[in-house]
């Protein structure tokens, strides 16, 4: 079997998800044994101008330049993987969409804001077709490896469409609600092995919302904790603001 040619590209993001690959340690070599990495700007100077079997896209699409670039990559790629929350759901970059674009530009650049064009933050699939989604901020390596295997096998990967709570319970964590704080686990897609709660934090919803969350009930539950409504909304759209773009 010929090794598929794989390339990494980054858009607006923190590049932490790419770093997650390096964090696999010598496991990276197993991945490299199965794939032929032809382009990866962060760690490689080599460039590739033919077709890619697999293009891995990190980061959100935040300006027209990025739209052009991602469109070109899509044309050259047989399989396109959205990698990390920024790519799959817009992620933290989406918080920008909470503000008027001009307002946020002025805030940051002052009077010269007009020089710095920006658009509403979008997830990759809101611009081009995506074949596989690797959720998470950062991505959860065991899931990423599972997806790479699915790519090799030529089969789909279904992102779990059930709540983080499922994994959280299996890990026998004390529920955050028992500790008297709220948690976005019940409306967030599982697959991270309830990473944050295992470490005593709450779920912030980085893997995106369920396809059919019971939002009304979730808000009712959150409201019981006497948090101002703006904070609840802030909390629910820290990662998930781009959901509103159709």
């Amino acid at each position: 079997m010929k090794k598929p040619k794989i390339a990494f590209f980054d858009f607006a993001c923190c590049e932490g998800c790419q770093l997650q690959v390096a964090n696999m340690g010598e496991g990276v070599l197993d991945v490299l044994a199965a794939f032929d990495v032809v382009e990866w700007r962060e760690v490689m100077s080599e460039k590739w101008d033919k077709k890619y079997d697999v293009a891995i896209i990190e980061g959100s699409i935040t300006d027209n330049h990025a739209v052009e670039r991602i469109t070109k990559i899509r044309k050259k790629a047989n399989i396109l993987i959205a990698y990390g929350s920024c790519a799959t759901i817009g992620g933290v970059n989406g918080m920008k969409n909470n503000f008027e674009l001009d307002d946020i530009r002025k805030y940051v650049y002052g009077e010269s804001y007009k020089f710095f064009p920006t658009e509403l933050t979008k997830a990759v699939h809101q611009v081009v077709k995506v074949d596989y989604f690797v959720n998470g901020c950062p991505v959860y390596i065991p899931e990423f490896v599972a997806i790479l295997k699915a790519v090799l096998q030529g089969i789909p990967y279904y992102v779990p469409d059930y709540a983080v709570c499922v994994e959280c319970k299996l890990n026998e964590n004390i529920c955050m609600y028992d500790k008297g704080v709220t948690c976005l686990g019940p409306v967030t897609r599982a697959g991270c092995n309830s990473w944050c709660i295992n470490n005593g934090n709450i779920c912030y919803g980085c893997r995106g919302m369920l396809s059919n969350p019971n939002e009304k009930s979730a808000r009712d539950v959150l409201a019981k904790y006497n948090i101002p409504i703006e904070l609840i909304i802030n909390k629910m759209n820290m990662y998930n603001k781009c959901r509103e773009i159709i």
Partner: protein
Amino acid sequence: MAIQNLNINVEYLTRVEGHGNIVINVKEGKIETCKLEIVEAPRFFEGMLRGRSIFEAQHITSRICGICACGHTLASIQAAEDALGIIPTSQTIKLRKLLLDLEMLDSHLLHIYLLVAPDLLGVKSFVPLINSHNEVVRRALRMKKKCNDVCDILVGRHVHPISAIVGGFTKLPEEKDIENMLGLLQGMRPDMEATVELFSKLKFPDFERDTEYVGLVSDDDEYPLLSGDIGSTDNIRLSKHDYRKITNEFIVPHSTAKRTKLSRESYAVGALARFNLNYDKLLSEARRVAEMIGLKPKCINPFLNTAAQLVECVHCLEHAIGILEEFKKSKINYDEEIVVGLNENRKIPVIEGNGVGAVEVPRGILFHNYQTDEKGCISYANCVIPTNQNTGNIEYDLKKLIPEILDRNEEEITLLSEMLVRAYDPCISCSTHLLNIKFM
């Protein structure tokens, strides 16, 4: 004969974090343009933070950069605690120091092995090294993984740490965790020796330019990373609250970057700056390595920033082991474990305030500054990133370097300029948390 006309345009500089271009234009032996453009899309973090709970600041700002996420986390927590008037316990401070050691170690190793070593070994990336220097690549990945594993135990993960938050830690390592971390780090020593061995043989380019170096300084005898005042090799010393006087951020008309300057037209931060400022406070193991590779303060060859990183690796590894050994003896106090949340039940009192965090992260000193309103929501946020502070300096370096090497061929010139930029380990994803930077 020296090159008279030269046009270098490195689009998408590789092996740095983020997108940058180097543009150099020489006409009739004279430099016309010499700039480092950053074309990464801006991300507007400070803008997005407005109106959010101060308790979310560290979670969000960690996402400015995945490479130094722990550094951002620590700077952010420090700023938030400063604003809220929270004084962390000594156990918390120790654990944070441990985290910072790991961050330094992890990031420096990544830079030294995966980003710089290919240049020194004459290849384009670490991929060909898998065949030619398999043991080196394996060692690099192994060391990286160990740092990562220790971080996993300490704070859940290295990229965007989970349990380090305002007030302390949401999960404290159990006794067996301390053992495990210690075992992993002690197990890293032979690999560290081999690393020193390898790099002591490699040759860095000769180049010097006198520079003002800026970093944390303190009065105690610990190499200051997590806290201290701000000092410079031009003998300036200021409190972190005066960070604006130091960074003097300004926007130049032809650039989209905020620039910084102190006593001179530019200054440098990072491993070399720290080394130059605090050489005496390095642990003896690290000083020994410095001697071995011939690195002495004040060193003004920017290429040797990588060597200073190597020295810091040794320091941080030993320092981290020291902290863990102490915890092994004195035991963790689990009553200090805290419950996270948007401070929903007002467990931590919030006040109107203004706080600054100044932390040495791998690429230099990092400032976070928040103002909170009486509800504990952020009304103003500002982060000053090391790479932004270095940009001016990189360009002045380039301007001095290019004329000195015009007798080489274009490829070599390009490579050397790339190497110079890379030596600073610029983290462009960090710098564009805010701005579309152009190094002019």
